[in-house]
């Protein structure tokens, strides 16, 4: 029972694999990583919380690592975490130009779902979703995964057929989804206007175990767990060059000096093209700003996540009470992480039609994140022309939900050279025409 409640202050054999290896680390400070629990909080409250340690260590880079991951966003940190946890590779550094979790991990609308159409997509997103289920316990950090259910509204007959197809595909893929009636939509989300008039709701694809999580906590939880395994997370450390010998990677140059490595993982989302250029190859990626906004917080009125692709907007309510709203990406390539207005206008219009009650709410804040878009709107998790250098990018507008699965697959790919989760997502596919087109399901292509 005590283990279950997580009050054990000391590592317990068999409790989790990372703890065992920590014991083996000679420089491990035994007291350093206190487990988080309600009892730890109570203990600390007695001394006004003066005893809490750093969530992750601040260390100077070593001269060499087995693996360097560039980019301490969710995907980079998760890759490092599973390298350690699943493959025993712990001599790892995660380099971050700014502050960890400060890119799209900290800017997205936190939706988690796996109701994808194509098999490779469903596999990696469902792996991810299932890892989210236990992530708080695995990381001993409450990421507030909230499987409140995600519904994607069908508002044209074409969308109805599209989602029925996805429901069939999901059934064979082991992804629990259901095509539901407009009445059920209304029951699950009473604030929806299902009658239109412009686009009446004809049904929805419903994934009851989809939901949301606290985005920052995912990055922080992975960072803490990586640091706990002895990995170095080095912030304010910009990579300025990828060093190679022959056709093999040997390390990177950074604003904190040169660091050697055997393997390099590039996991930098919007700036992937820049890093690929340093490594000497090109990517079929365009970077654009994706727009999002939140309302002022109000008392709970929406228990599910709703995505409306025909009118183009999606909305959920955060645990703080804000309506979190996402919309479209800017129609031009750019790197400015700024909000622009025209998409906000379109998105809010669409959502007022769908949820008339939001008209008198107020927009609190809008922002943009740079998303890396591939031609088929599916990610790239792949070896690269540079031996020892791997890339994980192209998550486009949907990367947050994929963080654990992406990290799991990427770690396996980097450790073993292949992973069933990532095998379809190679860079070669664009040359071969082997696209994994998810816009099919989103109804975007037609």
């Amino acid at each position, binding site marked *: 029972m005590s283990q279950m409640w997580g009050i054990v202050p000391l590592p317990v054999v068999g409790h989790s694999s990372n703890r065992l290896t920590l014991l083996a680390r000679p420089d491990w400070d035994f007291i350093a990583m206190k487990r988080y629990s309600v009892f730890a909080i109570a203990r600390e409250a007695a001394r006004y919380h003066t005893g809490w340690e750093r969530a992750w260590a601040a260390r100077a880079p070593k001269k060499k690592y087995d693996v360097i991951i560039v980019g301490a966003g969710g995907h980079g940190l998760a890759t490092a975490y599973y390298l350690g946890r699943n493959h025993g590779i712990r001599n790892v550094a995660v380099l971050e130009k700014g502050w960890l979790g400060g890119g799209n991990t900290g800017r997205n609308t936190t939706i988690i779902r796996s109701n994808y159409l194509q098999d490779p997509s469903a596999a990696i997103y469902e792996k991810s979703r299932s890892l989210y289920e236990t992530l708080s316990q695995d990381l001993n950090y409450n990421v507030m995964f909230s499987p409140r259910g995600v519904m994607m509204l069908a508002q044209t007959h074409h969308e109805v057929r599209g989602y029925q*197809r996805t429901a069939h595909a999901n059934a*064979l893929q082991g992804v629990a989804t259901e095509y539901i009636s407009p009445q059920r939509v209304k029951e699950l989300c009473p604030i929806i206007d299902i009658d239109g008039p412009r686009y009446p709701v004809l049904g929805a694809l419903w994934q009851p175990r989809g939901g949301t999580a606290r985005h920052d906590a995912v990055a922080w939880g992975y960072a803490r767990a990586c640091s706990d395994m002895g990995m170095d997370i080095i912030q304010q450390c910009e990579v300025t060059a990828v060093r190679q010998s022959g056709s093999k990677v040997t390390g990177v140059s950074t604003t904190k000096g040169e660091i050697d490595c055997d393997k390099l993982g590039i996991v930098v989302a919007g700036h992937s093209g820049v890093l690929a250029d340093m490594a000497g190859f090109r990517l079929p990626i365009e970077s654009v700003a994706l727009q999002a906004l939140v309302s002022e917080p109000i008392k*709970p009125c929406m228990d599910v996540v709703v995505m409306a692709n025909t009118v183009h907007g999606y909305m959920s309510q955060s645990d703080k009470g804000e309506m979190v709203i996402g919309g479209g990406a800017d129609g031009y390539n750019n790197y400015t992480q700024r909000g622009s207005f025209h998409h906000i206008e379109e998105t809010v219009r669409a959502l007022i039609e769908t949820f008339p009650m939001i008209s008198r709410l107020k*927009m609190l804040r809008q922002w943009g994140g740079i998303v890396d878009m591939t031609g088929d709107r599916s990610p790239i998790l792949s070896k690269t022309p540079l031996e020892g250098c791997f890339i994980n990018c192209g998550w486009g507008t949907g990367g947050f939900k994929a963080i654990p699965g992406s990290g799991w697959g990427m770690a396996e790919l980097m450790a073993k050279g292949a992973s069933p989760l990532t095998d379809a997502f190679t860079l070669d596919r664009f040359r071969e025409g082997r696209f994994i087109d998810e816009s099919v399901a989103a109804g975007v292509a037609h």
Partner: protein
Amino acid sequence: MSTRLARDGRFLNKSKAIKFTFNGKQLRGFEGDTLASALLANGQTLVGRSFKYHRPRGVVASGAEEPNALVNLGAEGRFEPNARATTTEVFEGLKAASQNHWPSLDFDVGAINARLARFLPAGFYYKMFIHPRPFWKYIYEPFIRQSAGLGKAPKARDADTYDHFYAHVDILIIGGGVAGLAAALTAGKSGARVLVIEQTAHWGGRAPVDGGTIDGLDPDEWVKKTLQALEKMKNIILGARMMGTGIYDHGYVLGYERLTDHTPDQDGPRHRLWRIRAKQIVTATGAIERPLSFAGNDVPGVMLASAIRDYVVNYAVSPGDRTVIVTNNDDAYRTALALKDAGLEVPAVVDARPEGGGALMQQVKDRGVRVLTGKGIAGVSGGKQVQGVKICAQAGEGAVLEEIPCDAVAMSGGWSPVVHLWSHCGGKLLWDQEKAHFHPDIGRAPTGADGEPFVIPAGAANGSMSLANVLAGGVAAGQMAVERAGLKPKRIATPEGDSVTEAPMQPVWMMPQGAGVKLRNKMWLDYQNDVKVSDVQLAAQEGFESVEHTKRYTTLGMATDQGKLSNINGLAVLSNALNADIPQVGTTTFRPPYTPISMGAIAGEARAELFQPIRKTPIHEWHDDNGAYWEPVGHWRRPYCYPRDGESHADAVNREVTNTRENLGLLDASTLGKIVVKGPDAGEFLDMLYTNMISTLKPGRCRYGLMCSENGFLIDDGVVARIDDDTFLCHTTTGGADRIHAHMEEWLQTEWWDWKVWTVNLTEQYAQIAVVGPNARKVLEKLGGMDVSKDTLPFMAWADGQIGGIDVRVYRISFSGELSYEIAVRAGQGRALWDALVEAGQEFGVMPYGTEALHVMRAEKGFIMIGDETDGTVIPQDLGLHWAISKKKDDYLGKRAHERSHMVDPDRWQLVGLETIDGSVIPDGAYAVAGGTNENGQRNVQGRVTSTYYSPTLKRGIAMGLVHNGPDRMGERLEFPKIDGTSVFAKIVDPVFYDKEGAKQDV
């Protein structure tokens, strides 16, 4: 206790009393009051509860920076949560209710959180609620969610309307204080087109309250005179109650005008969003006073010193009978003077500076007020109302020297320029060590497409803190804006500001300086979100060293005021904790909007019917009158079917199919895309666009063509007719018209810009009616006017002529497999021709048919449908359409892609027909399973259904599908699992189910 003073207030019209309610209690205010001033006038110091600890909260500020005084405003269709009382003007009948408490504002059960505060530090939820796992979903999260949010969720549909305005000006001036007005006067005299906007209802900003003189005049007088001058200039527009919301790229600015919030009974839109393009923007947005961080600084009655001054001077409201002032600068002494002028008591001014202040301090001392220098506040007595303050040495740890009874505290920690708008579009900031604030770095302004700066800060927003500098800065900004806008500035005399010289302020980030953990635990930074000095220190201690990390970990600055009061104080605490300089730690990003704006205003007029106007064909009304069940297709509505009384949609579809095959059907095909492609190079262009050879088509003939994307995927299909040597008419799918037209133009404009080709989308210029069925020719012959016989007008030919006296173009094309004429007429004649066909067709059994009958008939014929058989991953070769891919052409869009390894892979799924064994209909979207599972545990599949219907002609379920090696597996049985766990079995057959020879259409 706060109360109304007998004197006048600058903004008040005391002759006009206004009745309003707060929590159901009827209260009285005056015209000109804000809800906040009116509540204070009624002694209502407790106005709300904080977010996390449900602490009692009172009004702190007097403007947009207010974090506490948020109310549920109005009712039903005019209900608004989180309305800020300090910016809500009272009106007769206003109904307000306080938020975030249960059961009442005075007694709130949630206040237990405050007792538990020690167990709920910053980020506590990341560290607990982890075990046992199911508890998060069922217990912890529901509990957290129930305590979330502030205002209530609106329920009713919004009863108001909103609109958008567009404005193009040379110069936009944001802020109607004296700096903005001076800039406006300067810019206006040069002849530039100027828009000046002010977020409140009043011009002049703080100057009239803060005193001094302008050109020897009282600031109020000067503001009046200046406004009169500005109103006379035709090139100037003045907009009050209009906030500068956000500055975006290339001088694009949003202005948020609140038209009827203060007069809800007035007709017209509630809010108007101005979409402004300005060559230059002057941000004269003023400054915001900072609170001081001392224990108990959140008790109702502790307010900003400037706000207390505002309430006394502008609204004749006394926030308390005895007000202690605590400050680190001279400005707060003005509050002491204002209170004394109003006959109120000021027991003491507590000045943290060891030497105290300058001339203003002396004036205060001369009025007999006690001034304590080098002192601070160690604590505030009182729960829901200040009862006294404990005085300590600022340099110490908080040992109490004395306690001074009072019922209000005016605090001032210095001023922060409002740099939000400057920063929205990339303007950078500098830290001023002396004034302890960030101000715009003029050298690093936001730049436009030409690389030139387009924002100019002025006045207090630029860090100017004396009246003289504010005015000079305003004039200079106006002149600079004129020059940069490419106009000639006219010199004007800079208005002379005269105000008392102030002694330097001294940054005080914590009071007292050596406060221990117990005191720090009671020092609020963010009042709404309950973030305290101890929380920021905890974040730093735990490694959340980036200011963004600290913000996110503690929620500092994430409340509805977006940290207008808390950000700098929090940043200073963080810097101290990290032992770093403030500019080194940096600020969080300023994002639009400056203060929250209504979603309604963002959406504007485009709601309900105007949300996305429905496109209607010329025959739309007939369909509506004749019982059409509509289907949205693109922005059109098309009849899905025309059910008769008591008939189901499925029955209607079956009847329509059968009648068309046996007698005569009419389809409104007007929505089909019709793009004219014209020019000497039109043939060559279409050869590139279509996979077929189009240039060899003879005038008078039609050809079915396919279009692919660069990646080889089929994106559209349709019939091309050659009108003459230089002119082609390309039919596209209904949903494809705009997309394909854009696709053509993209190629023409970016790749083949030297080709002589013009395109125009004529979709709406023509109505098009398909006359289909064995009786089609008969009805046309009956109407008469042109020869529609097989010899004159054979299959896949077209001709111009007349039918029933109407000019028409008739195409002999068929998507149903029947004898079919598609007749195009000028849109204005569409309805006339339709009516004529319906009437003439009576004797031939005419019936209209909808899109579903169209789909069923084309599926019976094995014709593909874009969007069904294709989904962006299908190439023409998958669909057995090799015949439509020219082998003779060197190139076409998609040719190279078709040669890629995966595209020529023999394992691609290919089009087949599917016939269910039991005659049932395969569900839409079903997959055919193969044995076993893949590496990821997913069931292996070998094909899928693309179209599936009940065929009334064959009286059984038919389907088309893509199947692995399908065409080589005729007769094989496939299993299609259904969602309910059972399976349908189907036999692979030829995709053409009906009239395989095509005899019926070619007659």
